[in-house]
């Protein structure tokens, strides 16, 4: 069944796509992460969803594409195209305040400050990362690379807990 074209469809479809969860950060959805670019609906009822990857090799992208199609299909949108767009490149600045709050609530420190400018910086001054467990700023980077491409591994000097930090990009 293909939906009758309706000006409301694009808006409704956007709402459905926006609610799709990130498979590796299930506490946030695609809108929170700022990876959902556009949702369009043409006269024939085909929905085109445009997303942007966080990292070029992010292995979650295939799962995200499948999840978008499945979520829309559940609401009767059977003709769905998911496109990937690289420009402008995703940055952690695109994570919404709501997304940052949800990450912190689930023990993942959100990115601090603005994203570093691409490439030019050799040694920079970085803001302290707040421990998502106890709120202390006495934290240190254990490894710049963490459990997924977008995260670094930190540990807290106050509560001694390790935690993930979405690194500024």
């Amino acid at each position: 069944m293909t939906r009758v074209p309706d000006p409301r469809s694009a808006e409704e479809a956007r709402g459905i796509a926006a609610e799709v969860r990130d498979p590796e950060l299930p506490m946030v959805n695609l809108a929170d992460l700022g990876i959902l670019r556009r949702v369009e609906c043409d006269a024939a009822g085909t929905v085109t969803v445009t997303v942007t990857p966080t990292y070029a090799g992010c292995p979650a992208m295939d799962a995200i594409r499948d999840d978008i199609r499945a979520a829309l299909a559940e609401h009767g949108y059977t003709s769905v195209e998911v496109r990937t767009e690289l420009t402008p490149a995703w940055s952690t600045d695109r994570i919404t305040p709501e997304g940052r709050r949800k990450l912190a609530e689930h023990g993942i420190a959100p990115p601090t400050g603005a994203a570093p400018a691409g490439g030019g910086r050799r040694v920079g001054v970085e803001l302290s990362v707040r421990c998502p467990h106890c709120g202390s700023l006495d934290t240190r980077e254990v490894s710049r690379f963490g459990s997924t491409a977008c995260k670094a591994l930190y540990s807290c000097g106050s509560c001694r807990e390790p935690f993930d930090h979405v690194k500024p990009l």
Partner: protein
Amino acid sequence: MNAEDAPDRVGARAVTADTAAVSYLLRLGDDALVASHRLAELVTRAPQLEEDVALSNISLDLLGQARLLLSYAGRLEEQLTGVLRTEDELAYLRDESQFVNCRLVEFPNTDFAHTVARQLLFSAYAVELYTALGGSTDGELAGIAAKAVKEAAYHRDHAARWTVRLGDGTGESARRMTRALEALWPYTAEVFASDGVARAVSGTGFGTDPAGLRPAWDAFLDGVLAEAGLQRPAVAPVAGLGGLGGRDGVHTEPFGYLLAEMQHLHRSHPGAQW
């Protein structure tokens, strides 16, 4: 080799903007793919857990870049030849002489210092490369570059920190880091060599002539080496067989073994998925 002496390296055909663009994308894609595979070899074998995670992440970033570059090369080539080679066909079904990566990225891991040295020399180049390509007249390549430059900056930082730790570490770590830099430095000239393809893509604004990236690369390397207490190796560039190198499909001996491992599954089970 002097930039002006380098031959136009696309056989007997004249270099046109389009074939040059395809050749250029294959070089960038092959560099990223082979660099990625060398790091993938270290998964579960890195010296510590955090390093295992870091090297896998960097490998994954490079693989993502390779996929974007190779699939774009395939699509551009299709416009010229009418035949599409997918990213998988380009990665898994070409033979050694058809790969046009620089020899630097195929250097084996040998010891951790060699891995760090390879990553340092290559990622410092990648940062300059993708910074320049952010201004490409081609929207798709500029988009890939804008994405890749942020990742490359993290890779370069990782390698630079390790270079300082090893160079300014114990006598043994400094000795190994020195030996690794001496072994790899001769292969850096090729990375910055100008030739017909480089000049053609630079002329159209599609790409950039790597020769122009060298001063910024040199300056960055000098800074890291000084901080690490290491000397810039005084070694001459390694010429390839008959003056040909990686960009001509003439590679080092270990590269054949790398390809055999990388391509084995796909060649034995064509189209396999999991």
